[in-house]
């Protein structure tokens, strides 16, 4: 079956992308540079810069000598590749098979696609216009072979269409560089006086091979269609989306729940087969008046359990306003993760972590995940820093819980200032006043000095006392700072049992 290919070339890809970020760069000469072999070389230049005589491969210092006001930025190959990848994925809407030709080209297998747009010319123009709307200048060509389309896209006008089986004629007037051959071969061809492809197109292969090697024969064959060329297609990211359209618009809570349940069952079946679990999902209801009602959920751990997910959604179903009715429901998993299938236990013990995870999801959905805390020991001795929060249910402590010193069961978030009566310096207090109430102390332990961790803070150390008042209540008090260096301050920091 004859195939048709379209090559898209973005001649100013790098600079267009930089100009999208800062539109004021568009008017002035602007280049992207990369440090190579101890020199800063220009990798991409925009149209005004090219008009001033600056070209790619020049050293930045030379270019600035020609044009002192030249603006430059760093050429970031990684992010450009990501952008090209995104653009390639976007192109899947025009043709099912899309491949990237790094650094600035895309190839589409358009066999059987163009008639949907009313012919190849309209199709090509439409794509170029759409890309231009996105801020990128593009040139494209359509041909029977990828090689010919590549050559025509880069060496002719905005859109060139090479009719079927006519790639030889189209190529004849183009320079050898249009064949995707290495610079070395290009230079040798130039040396021997071959300026255009037609001049060596009809020379026998064996002669060409002797002079220029296999590469030229191979590339020429690809352009003319005598050699096969394969493209590796971009895989679109699978979208976990389920749709349910209704014959009659739905406006009852039960109806919405039924729809949700159906969608969840099919989605969860699919997720389970692929070994995935859902972390975030969105449920949309398209109303007949054009409004879209949306509810979101998130889980703490990848889940493909429809009953649990239904519960999470169910808490939010009352937020949906069906008004005149909803005609289409869409459920989409916006974030999925590989889920570890639980191993079947030989003895079903009472430590069902997944049940707890589901309970916590319910709580997080209703109240907010900020309300759930779990703590692990942290290697600090300063009382406020001895614990660190963790968000996962599975993490285990890396160190043991400190048990050498007595710590109060109730610790105040902020130590509260108190007034004390101390018989002698460094003695425990005899009484203290907190919130206008006086507590007479009868027993005391201490002091336990806790020094500041100097690598974190350089404030005063604390001397802690464990005291008991005459009613039997036990407190944790501390004095901040030393005697003899100003007035030491006293605080109440916690309650012992």
């Amino acid at each position, binding site marked *: 079956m004859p195939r048709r290919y379209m090559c898209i070339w973005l001649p100013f890809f790098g600079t267009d992308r930089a100009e999208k970020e800062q539109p004021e760069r568009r008017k002035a000469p602007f280049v992207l540079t990369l440090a190579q072999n101890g020199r800063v070389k220009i990798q991409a230049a925009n149209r005004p810069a090219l008009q001033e005589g600056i070209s790619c491969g020049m050293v930045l210092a030379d270019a600035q000598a020609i044009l002192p006001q030249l603006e430059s930025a760093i050429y970031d190959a990684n992010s450009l590749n990501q952008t090209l990848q995104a653009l390639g994925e976007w192109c899947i809407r025009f043709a099912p098979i899309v491949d990237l030709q790094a650094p600035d080209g895309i190839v589409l297998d358009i066999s059987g696609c163009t008639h949907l747009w009313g012919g190849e010319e309209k199709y090509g123009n439409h794509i170029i216009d759409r890309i231009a709307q996105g801020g990128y200048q593009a040139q494209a060509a359509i041909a029977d072979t990828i090689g010919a389309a590549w050559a025509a896209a880069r060496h002719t006008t905005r859109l060139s269409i090479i009719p079927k089986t006519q790639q030889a004629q189209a190529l004849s007037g183009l320079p050898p560089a249009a064949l995707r051959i290495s610079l070395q071969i290009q230079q040798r061809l130039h040396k021997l006086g071959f300026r255009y492809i037609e001049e060596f197109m009809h020379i026998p292969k064996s002669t060409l091979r002797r002079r220029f090697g296999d590469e030229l024969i191979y590339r020429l064959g690809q352009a003319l269609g005598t050699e096969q060329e394969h493209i590796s297609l971009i895989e679109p990211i699978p979208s976990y989306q389920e749709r349910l359209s209704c014959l009659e618009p739905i406006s009852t809570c039960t109806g919405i729940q039924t729809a949700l349940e159906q969608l969840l069952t099919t989605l969860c079946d699919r997720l389970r087969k692929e070994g995935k679990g859902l972390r975030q999902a969105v449920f949309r209801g398209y109303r007949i008046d054009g409004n879209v009602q949306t509810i979101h959920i998130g889980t703490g751990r990848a889940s493909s359990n429809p009953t649990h997910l239904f519960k999470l959604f169910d808490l939010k179903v009352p937020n949906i306003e069906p008004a005149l009715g909803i005609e289409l429901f869409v459920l989409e998993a916006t974030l999925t993760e590989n889920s570890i299938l639980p191993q079947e236990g030989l003895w079903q013990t009472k430590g069902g*972590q997944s049940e*707890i995870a589901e*309970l916590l999801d319910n709580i997080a959905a209703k109240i907010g995940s900020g309300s759930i805390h779990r*703590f692990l020991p942290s290697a600090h001795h300063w009382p406020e820093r001895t614990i660190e929060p963790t968000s996962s249910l599975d993490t285990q402590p890396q160190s043991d819980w400190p048990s050498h010193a007595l710590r*109060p069961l109730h610790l105040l978030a902020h130590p509260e200032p108190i007034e004390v009566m101390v018989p002698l310096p460094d003695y425990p207090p005899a009484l203290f006043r907190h919130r206008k109430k006086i507590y007479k102390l009868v027993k005391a332990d201490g002091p336990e000095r806790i020094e500041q961790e100097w690598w974190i803070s350089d404030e005063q150390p604390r001397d802690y006392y464990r005291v008991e008042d005459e009613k039997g209540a036990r407190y944790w008090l501390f004095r901040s700072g030393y005697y003899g260096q100003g007035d030491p301050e006293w605080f109440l920091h916690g309650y012992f049992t």
Partner: protein
Amino acid sequence: MEGTAKQEVIRQLQEKILKLEGFKPHTGILNRIDFGLADIESAFPFGTFPTAAVHEFISPTAVHATATNGFIASIVAKLMHAGNFCLWISTKRSLSPIGLTHFGIAPHQVIFVDITQHKDALWVMEQALKCNALAAVVAEMEEVSFSESQRLQLAVEKSNVTGFLHRRRPRHENTLACVSRWKIRSIASRVPDGLPGVGYPTWEVSLEKVRNGRPGKWQVSWQNNQLVHLSKEAITRTARPNHEQYA
């Protein structure tokens, strides 16, 4: 002879009623958890601390609340022996995870849920009590109404989770559908021979109400991971009322 036969019939009937009310005598040794409550256990039906029930604790001040949380922690530690998780719900939490280690709880096995709305706290507690993977659920809040406590009791009956409802500074001590009502007060610690320093945590535990049991008052102290009863003379056992109506 007739009298003993009558008593036996009454005893059997009482046991039947207890079973209907959800109290089960622990027959196997494996099932039985030793709560280390010693004398206090004699106050409960069948002589065991009722699990799969909601216990109510009342504490009027921050000092009382600390003692109460200490007592709760000592019981929860026994329930969590198998490495299960415990949920600790509070509206104004000042409980420090490090302090729990002293009562034999690994703090990383406790999930804290900090809530500002009283209504949410009740909802979370009800949901948590339905989850039988949890060892225990502790909730610190202020006001609870009778009907709210009924819901908690219903949740517990299905799942066999033990709930602890700790009411801090309630405006009035209304009756709840809980299996028991406790008040824990910290009292002066005892130091042998007048040695200086603060002794072990010491509490006065008063069990004000217990369904099908005998309320009482005990003085205990938490020493080396177990409850130790202090001198007997302090114990004043209140007489059991003739007919008590609990929910």
